């Protein structure tokens, strides 16, 4: 538990430090304020979002290209439907069983909301409510894969239904 907190603190220190350097263009004059602001941000983030389990950063980095591709495909798909005169839509809802901790579900929901044709709307029991832009297009096939990838990033057991 303490090890997870230390690791998370180091990760977040690196992240917020990088954000500070970007915001100040690495000006030497901004370093003193950063030396105060970055530890304060780390402290606050650990209070608001305590480190429960370490995020596997390698898995997160490996997942980035897939996410990028998915968000481009999602944007192109919705643009095509918006411009198409016939506007092919068949909106509907599905409830997907997702075996992830709460934070993982929120992250999965955020990711799905940028992937083609899926939009998360919170949970119903232990199921993730997902809105589909077109029920016949098979957008929901990607959800178990994304859930499995999120489980790997969070280093929890993969969901049993990743068929």
């Amino acid at each position, binding site marked *: 538990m303490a090890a997870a907190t230390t690791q998370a603190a180091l990760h977040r220190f690196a992240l917020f430090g990088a*954000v500070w350097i*970007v*915001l100040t*263009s*690495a000006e030497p004059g901004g370093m003193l304020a950063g030396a105060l602001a970055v530890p304060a941000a780390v402290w606050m983030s650990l209070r608001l979002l305590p480190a429960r389990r370490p995020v596997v950063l390698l898995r997160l980095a490996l997942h980035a290209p897939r996410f990028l591709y998915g*968000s*481009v495909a*999602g*944007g*192109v*798909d*919705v*643009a095509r*439907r*918006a*411009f198409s005169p016939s*506007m092919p*839509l068949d*909106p509907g809802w599905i409830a997907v069983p997702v075996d992830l901790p709460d934070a993982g579900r*929120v992250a999965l*929901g*955020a*990711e799905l*909301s*940028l992937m*083609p*044709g899926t*939009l*998360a*709307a*919170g949970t119903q029991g232990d199921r993730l*409510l997902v*809105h589909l*832009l077109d029920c016949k297009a098979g957008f929901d096939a990607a959800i178990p894969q994304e859930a499995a990838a999120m489980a790997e990033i969070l280093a929890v057991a993969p969901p049993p239904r990743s068929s």
Partner: protein
Amino acid sequence: MADLATVLLTAAGLCFFLAGTAGVIRFPDIHSRLHALTKADNLGLGFIAVGVALQAESWAQVARLGLIWALALLAAGTVAQLVARAALTDRAAAPDGAKRGSRR
């Protein structure tokens, strides 16, 4: 060469913003509209950020554009879920007046 790429990329970005707006106007219900708003607009911002980054004079400007896009992505993914959820509970409560009080 960089100028041409900037023109093409920002033009593509604007097309996606236009698509997002068209979707918000044309799509039939609030959840379908959210798809258009989050996905198309984020891709549009991504294209514009890459296009503008080609004109940047320093790494810091490029990094700042990347930061802006990453924060917009994070905000869109989070807010889309919150709006979708709020619209869902509103709609569930709307037909039945008695349910309104139990809304969170």
